[in-house]
């Protein structure tokens, strides 16, 4: 991805992410979230990670945000009348944001840029990724699936609870 294209995409992504937070209409916020996720997928494509890019679109943009929209529509949320948050809340939030920015910038400055290397052939392709996932990272992978299973069983148990 050439620098001008990257900068343009980055600007659009940040604008879209800001819209998610700032927009008053919850449905518009959810739509902005979809476009942010799709734009992030484009960055993954630029990094030769095609599998991750499309999984991002399938799982987040295609399924999770649809469920967000579903809930927003069922609850019939309207445009929120913005009750101005108290100065204390705004101040704390701003301080937190500044602290996070300082942290990120310091961490980035300290981290030595890795030497530019040519990725091996087949980098980011499904076979290479799957091999890593099922050999080196087998334990975390299986633990994650158990975690998800627990969540599913818990959701079913809660939904089935008799009054």
């Amino acid at each position, binding site marked *: 991805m050439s620098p001008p294209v990257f900068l343009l995409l980055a600007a659009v992504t940040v604008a879209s992410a800001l819209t998610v937070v700032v927009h008053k209409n919850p449905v518009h916020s959810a739509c902005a979230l*979809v476009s942010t996720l799709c734009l992030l997928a484009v960055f993954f494509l630029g990094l030769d990670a095609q599998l991750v890019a499309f999984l991002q679109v*399938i799982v987040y943009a295609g399924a999770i945000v649809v469920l967000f929209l579903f809930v927003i529509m069922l609850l019939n949320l309207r445009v929120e009348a913005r009750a101005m948050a108290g100065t204390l809340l705004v101040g704390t939030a701003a301080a937190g944001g500044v602290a996070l920015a300082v942290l990120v910038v310091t961490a980035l400055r300290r981290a030595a840029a890795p030497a530019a290397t040519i990725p091996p052939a087949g980098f980011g392709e499904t076979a290479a990724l799957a091999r890593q996932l099922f050999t080196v990272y087998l334990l975390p992978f299986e633990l994650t699936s158990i975690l998800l299973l627990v969540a599913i069983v818990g959701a079913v148990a809660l939904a089935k609870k008799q009054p």
Partner: protein
Amino acid sequence: MAEVAIKSLFIVLLVLQVMGLGVFFERKVSALIQDRIGANRAAIMGFAGLGLVNTLVADPVKFLLKEDVVPAGTDHLLHFLAPVLSLVPVLVTFAVVPFGDVLQVGGHTINLQAAELNVGILYVLAMVSLAVYGVVLGGWASNNRWSLLGGIRGSAQMISYEIAMGLALVSVVLTYDTLDLQQMARAQGGYLLHGWLPAWGILYQPVAFLVFMTAGVAESKRIPFDLPEGESELVSGYFTEYSGPKHLIFMMSDFVEVVLVAALVTTLFFGGWQVPYLLRDGLHFPWGAAVALPSWAVALLQVTAFALKLVFFTWLQIVIRWTLPRFRYDQLMRLGWQGLLPVALANVVVSALVIVLAAGPAA
């Protein structure tokens, strides 16, 4: 660049032609099934062409000239975007669908597939899962309760059937050992029974075919799965408040989805562009005869075969639509979650077992 542009244009034009034929089937085959005459009013200089003039010329022109009514209280931006968001993801999915093998032009070998992605099938799933936004946002932005109900029904239905569809695709991927649709089509070039029977995917994955086709018809929101529209309950569901060109785009995306399901079924289970006994250098019949053919003739035969298969599966879906009654909503959900999902899961396990056992002990 020019090559990709030409290939993309070609596949889109091919799809739109088949879509036109699909609309024609919808008007005339439905009439045949219901024992009536069907569209026969419009004619150009006395030529009605069995209703073709009606479906290909009169309908679109009429739609485009109608007033575009936007009801009060709608969300203008999303009301405008919804039809676009339902058509575009479906149309761009055809980028990874191969419509032929290779074409030799003056030393160049052209792969007859608009975009070569090593994760082709995931691209298809990603785009299909984005198509749901057109339905949801169209239903919400219309500021109409029937539309909202249609949108919510549509999103729940599409998400539910996507899971069965994805699992059916997993067993297909296991069978072909690739995610690229072109490689899948090429993998179906073998023969069984001493070279007589083309070894198409349907012979290896009949269960996956049934699950995929059912889920595909449900994804395209057609009868018996057309609850998001449900004329007798919801006027016309999520596009009740759409008229003129926007309504045309919604209808168009419905029909393009039908063609997409036909294209995927063809590519995954019926050999894609494969013509029986046709290899890259000509026809080789199992009784020993052979006819040498130039590369362009082979490519032409393959593209024609692909188009004919597309037309057949489009026709089949229209016939299904006009044959079956509509499901009740609980029946729809039960079929998706308790019928197709377990069958697809079992099929994945059985396929994996067979493949591992056939490969013998791992080295």
